[in-house]
């Protein structure tokens, strides 16, 4: 696989003409957003003032919630064409440069069925959305990933709808090279961190929504993660000492909470970035190193799991 520096070279050299055009576009859009945004804000302020003077606070609050939603819609509308251009001209070539076999569809996402199958989150989502779907094979291992937003619907006593975020980030599904039958889930260890070993350990053991707690024999791994499985032995067959080291190293690179599960011959990884990745930057230059690295690194980490976790070493490849 291409290294990060190779990809950075590709970004700044091969994609430079496109970047230059997009950068002009970005500056125009930024100006337009500031202009329209100011007008819009004035308009909202005016109406708010009028509502406040002549009606109750309730109506004002209702209007403001509406205005907020409209702001988001307006912003998305304004950057829509620019964003589509960006994905086609920058993200798509970047992905095919990593590996020719990778297929990129900007508007699709990992299916909600796959999200539910992963059992990473105890709450079942009512709505799953996302974009930037990538599918392909790396070293003979099938892999797919996309941005994903999973939400649950709530209704309060007045019948008002609200959506709670279950997960927002990058969701990766890949083949796993070992045969197994049970379900093993590796989650960030929040209980032990907040409540300490004794109480946290007790809470983990008595987690009703999960299967049996598996205590692992790697102290650092135990500190970072908590493992639940339907099979004590199988969990250790999957999480060998070297696999635990690799997952720890991968976690350190990512620096975001990471949820992992091994179910039905697949490995599922959910990386909680809490933002939509691979979106065109509007207020920062596309030529800025930091912005470029964000796109490149995220892609590299997602595609890199095959190499990083040695998923390409099939069962017998040791010989």
């Amino acid at each position, binding site marked *: 696989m291409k290294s990060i520096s190779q990809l950075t070279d590709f970004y700044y050299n091969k994609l430079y003409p496109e970047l230059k055009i997009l950068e002009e576009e970005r500056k125009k859009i930024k100006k337009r957003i500031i202009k329209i945004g100011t007008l819009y804000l004035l308009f909202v302020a005016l109406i708010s003032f009028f509502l406040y003077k002549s009606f109750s606070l309730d109506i004002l609050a209702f209007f403001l919630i509406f205005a907020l939603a409209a702001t988001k819609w307006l912003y998305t509308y304004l950057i829509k064409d620019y964003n589509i251009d960006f994905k086609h001209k920058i993200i798509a070539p970047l992905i095919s440069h990593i590996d020719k076999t990778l297929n990129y569809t900007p508007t699709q996402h990992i299916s909600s069925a796959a999200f539910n199958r992963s059992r990473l989150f105890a709450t079942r989502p009512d709505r799953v959305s996302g974009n930037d779907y990538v599918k392909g094979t790396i070293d003979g291992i099938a892999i797919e990933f996309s941005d994903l937003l999973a939400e649950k619907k709530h209704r309060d006593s007045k019948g008002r709808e609200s959506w709670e975020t279950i997960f927002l980030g990058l969701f990766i599904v890949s083949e796993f090279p070992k045969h197994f039958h049970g379900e093993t889930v590796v989650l960030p260890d929040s209980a032990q961190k907040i409540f300490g070993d004794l109480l946290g350990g007790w809470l983990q053991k008595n987690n009703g929504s999960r299967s049996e707690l598996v205590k692992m024999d790697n102290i650092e791994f135990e500190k970072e993660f908590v493992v639940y499985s339907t099979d004590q*032995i199988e969990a*250790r*067959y999957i999480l*060998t000492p070297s696999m635990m080291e690799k997952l720890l190293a991968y976690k350190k690179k990512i620096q975001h909470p990471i949820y992992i599960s091994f179910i039905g011959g697949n490995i599922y990884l959910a990386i909680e970035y809490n933002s939509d990745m691979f979106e065109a930057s509007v207020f920062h230059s596309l030529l800025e190193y930091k912005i470029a690295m964000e796109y490149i690194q995220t892609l590299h980490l997602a595609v890199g799991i095959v190499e990083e976790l040695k998923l390409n070493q099939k069962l*017998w490849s040791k*010989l």
Partner: protein
Amino acid sequence: MSTPLIIIIVLLIILVLMYNSLVAKKNQVDNIFASVDAQLKKRYDLIPNLVASVSKYMEHEKSILEEITKLRSEANKPNLSEKEKIDLDAKVSSALGSIMVAVENYPELKANENVMHLQRSLNEVEEQIAAARRAYNQAVTDYNNALEMIPTNFMASAMGYKPKDVFVITDEERKNLDVGELFNR
């Protein structure tokens, strides 16, 4: 209800909980040992095949081959205690390790499809055994902890529970093949 009665009931409940948790821990150990045993048996079943395939070529390693055959027949004896099985496993692991190292010295063997297949099967079984051993060690650690910690230790000694042995993961198993050493022999 009078206070003494409540205290007695609470104490009884605590005793029952302690008793149950000890039994559960002991059964967990037995359970996982059964899986370890099954995996070990799988490996023992591979040994005759392996010995038959390599003995034609291996002139200098006759003693290891004889030893491993002996170990296997010992392991097949009925009524072995857990401790005996654990000790035998350690010996078999090291003997198998030296056979595998020796195979590297014989190009005919390395290229032999039958031997290659056996090696793969052994590798797979070894991985399963390693996982089962680690699960067993964790279960035994939980069990032994309960036997030594207050307040379950009183209960455990009253029930006549004895601490159990864990599998020792030898350095030889952790070590990777040292290619340099192969040439020095």
